[in-house]
């Protein structure tokens, strides 16, 4: 195993952060903490895009653009999710996912 940081090290960091986000998403029942886990997952994907861009196709810009667009969409998603969470809190006085169950019906 090479100690010098390279592509593989960034991919490992990305994978570990992704699965930490998955763990949070599976175990938490509070909507805000679940949203935070989703942000972690999106960030880990961005690390992968930038690392591939740097180490495999250094002359191109596509990885950077994917990252910028993912960040923009993540911002939109967080804003809409928080608006929904605040609305849910107003009607149910709780932001536990289990109280959102009745949205199914």
């Amino acid at each position, binding site marked *: 195993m090479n*100690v*010098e*940081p*390279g*592509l*593989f*090290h*960034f*991919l*490992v*960091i990305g*994978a*570990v*952060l992704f*699965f*930490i*986000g*998955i*763990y949070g998403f*599976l*175990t*938490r029942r*509070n909507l*805000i*903490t679940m949203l*935070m*886990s989703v*942000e*972690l997952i999106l*960030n880990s994907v*961005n*690390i992968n895009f*930038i690392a591939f861009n*740097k*180490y*495999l196709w*250094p*002359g191109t*810009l596509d990885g*950077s*653009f994917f*990252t*910028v667009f993912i*960040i*923009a*969409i*993540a*911002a*939109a*998603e*967080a*804003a*809409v999710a928080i*608006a929904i*969470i*605040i*609305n849910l*809190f*107003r009607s149910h006085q709780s*932001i536990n996912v289990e109280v959102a169950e009745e949205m199914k019906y």
Partner: protein
Amino acid sequence: MNGSTIVFYLLGLMSIVSAVLSVTSRQIFRSAIYLLFTLIGIAGLYFWMDYQFIAAVQIVVYVGGIAVLIIFSIFLTQQSGEQLPEVPVSRAVAGAIAVMSGLALVLVLMDRYGFSGLSDPGPAPSVAAIGEKMLDINGYALPFEVVSILLLAAMVGCIVIAMRKKSQV
């Protein structure tokens, strides 16, 4: 092992440790602050790779925007000082097993494939190159416009969803 390598490992360690604390802490406000440190660590990794533009966007949008938005929504929806309920052991164990097996699978696959990469990649693209490609008709001009419309729609949608109805006042 030189200085740059040590900085890389410190940034990676900071991101991962604060991410673990962020998903396990029972104080929701602390969990948001740990998420903030993870995001800063990731921005540091982008700086380490010489992608200054992406690092700046990460700091402005995530650290300055989304983290503050999350903290404000915690203030709006959470009783201060209240701890989150403890995670049931069965759910924590099941989640940990699923995550560990998934991580092991991914690591084994990455090791088998053996991403070598370039040992000495060239300089990172300049901000001017990113700007020109962004507005180039053969580049990313169309996605750029679509994202701007998406952001406008998200902004209007947020206002409509979070607005208090007249009858509820």
